[in-house]
């Protein structure tokens, strides 16, 4: 059976070059970069080279890059660390309603710690209106955190516009660019932001490593206290193999970003147009234009996402869904709900995310296996029965 991985939003495979770059650091070059002997020297050298590669990818300088253990850690670090460092100035923060939980729940933790939290709504496409941010800024606002691109629906936010507003008001602005860095070009200077999160396993680098860009001069409280690694801002023995892998992935992304955008964009556009041509009562979610090149997300009416996902998996196709049943907490995607979709429609969520290894044949295969799956589940669905009998219950 054909095996087609279309869940690159969840995690990406390692590029062979990335794996090759890592291997020596899982072997004889196992040193700890804090050490002053040869083993430490090699590790330090590798780490600083990787820092340069990551800095290059996003247009930062090396002393603005802090390595972390994951995208989630970068987001927790940024949101909590930037807010706590400024609590004498004010205790109000702003995030969007469609942030990843690592931002949203960090913000809620700050709420427990005495901060006030404003969630900015989004429109039907999942876009944040910069004016809405402007309206909600208060005298005591110290941090705005709005994601660069949403991994679930692919929508790219107008970060540069928002950053212009936060700069006018002298408020720190963090953006979660975990879903975008390495896939589309991201430049911290062009965006004009103060902090940015990225993660290795979103662009063919390893798991267990992320980075936080933090603009020179911006103060942040550590999330991980301990030794003086990373200039005292992030303690703990550095994960050198993963850091080296992240560096290599950054290097390759920088070189290949234009061709990635083109290749992924083509696959996405095919699926976005051809799947609805074959299946009735299916809705594209996310922004029609400003969206990640690899993201094709839909809601299929009258059926539920987990069942779709499992039947696709039985045909060798790996996808994900924002339905309540697929989440361990049994809640429909907060992103889809914030975009104004009904819970019923959100239940039919299915998300295809492409990677650089996917090819035309993969789209053909999806177009072949998906319609019968939808048909089969609809034949089982009491909602579809009601709709076909009464014409009611559709959108």
């Amino acid at each position, binding site marked *: 059976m054909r095996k087609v991985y279309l869940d690159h939003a969840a995690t990406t495979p390692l590029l062979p070059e990335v794996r090759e770059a890592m291997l020596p650091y899982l072997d004889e070059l196992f040193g700890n970069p804090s050490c002053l002997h040869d083993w430490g020297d090699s590790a330090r050298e590798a780490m600083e080279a990787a820092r340069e590669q990551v800095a290059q990818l996003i247009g930062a300088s090396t002393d603005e890059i802090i390595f972390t253990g994951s995208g989630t850690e970068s987001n927790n670090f940024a949101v909590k660390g930037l807010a706590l460092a400024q609590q004498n100035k004010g205790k109000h923060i702003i995030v969007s309603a469609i942030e990843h939980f690592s931002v949203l729940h960090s913000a809620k933790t700050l709420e427990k710690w005495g901060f006030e939290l404003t969630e900015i709504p989004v429109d039907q496409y999942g876009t944040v209106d910069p004016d809405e941010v402007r309206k909600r800024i208060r005298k005591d606002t110290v941090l705005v955190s709005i994601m660069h691109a949403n991994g679930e629906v692919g929508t790219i936010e107008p970060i540069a516009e928002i950053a212009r507003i936060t700069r006018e008001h002298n408020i720190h602005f963090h953006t979660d660019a975990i879903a975008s860095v390495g896939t589309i070009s991201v430049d911290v200077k062009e965006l004009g932001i103060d902090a940015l999160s990225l993660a290795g396993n979103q662009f063919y680098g390893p798991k267990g490593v992320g980075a936080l860009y933090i603009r020179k001069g911006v103060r942040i409280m550590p999330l991980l206290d301990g030794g003086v690694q990373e200039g005292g801002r992030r303690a703990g023995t550095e994960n050198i193999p993963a850091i080296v892998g992240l560096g290599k992935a950054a290097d390759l992304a920088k070189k290949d970003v234009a061709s990635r955008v083109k290749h992924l964009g083509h696959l996405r556009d095919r699926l976005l147009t051809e799947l609805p041509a074959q299946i009735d009562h299916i809705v594209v979610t996310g922004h029609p234009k400003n969206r990640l090149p690899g993201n094709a997300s839909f809601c299929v009416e009258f059926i539920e996402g*987990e*069942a779709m996902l*499992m039947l696709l998996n039985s045909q060798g196709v790996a996808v994900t869904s924002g*339905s*309540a*049943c697929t989440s361990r907490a049994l809640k429909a995607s907060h992103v889809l709900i914030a975009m104004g979709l009904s819970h019923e429609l959100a239940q039919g969520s299915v998300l295809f995310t492409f990677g650089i290894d996917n090819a035309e044949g993969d789209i053909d295969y999806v177009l072949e296996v998906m319609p019968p799956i939808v048909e089969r589940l609809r034949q089982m*669905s*009491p*909602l*579809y029965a009601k709709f076909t009998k009464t014409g009611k219950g559709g959108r």
Partner: protein
Amino acid sequence: MPIYSEKVMEHFMNPRNVGEIENPDGTGEVGNPVCGDMMTFYIKVKDNRLEDVKFKTFGCGAAIAVSSMVSEMAKGKTLDEARKITPKLVADELEGLPKNKFHCSNLGAQALNKAIDNYLKKQAKRGKK
């Protein structure tokens, strides 16, 4: 390590008794799409026995497998016997369910019970007439 047992997968991939019964003796509908799962059970009763059981389900793999299992367990049983199909029994027959999916087995048993209730109510009405 799939989250579902082989038995759940088997029933999900090949669900028994999917469909509607024309002029059913009883129907039971539970759940709603907001919370994720929705099941409708249809029964045909003869001599106090479930001669036929069918269902339609909107929901996850567990919901579909539970529906299939409940329909299979119920078919041929007397109404009293069918009442004794508890969520626990259904889950056990399916070789277990993930903790957060256990409510699906509740739904299945409930839908069947509702269909029986519906049948008995209809009978009572008919008796009155």
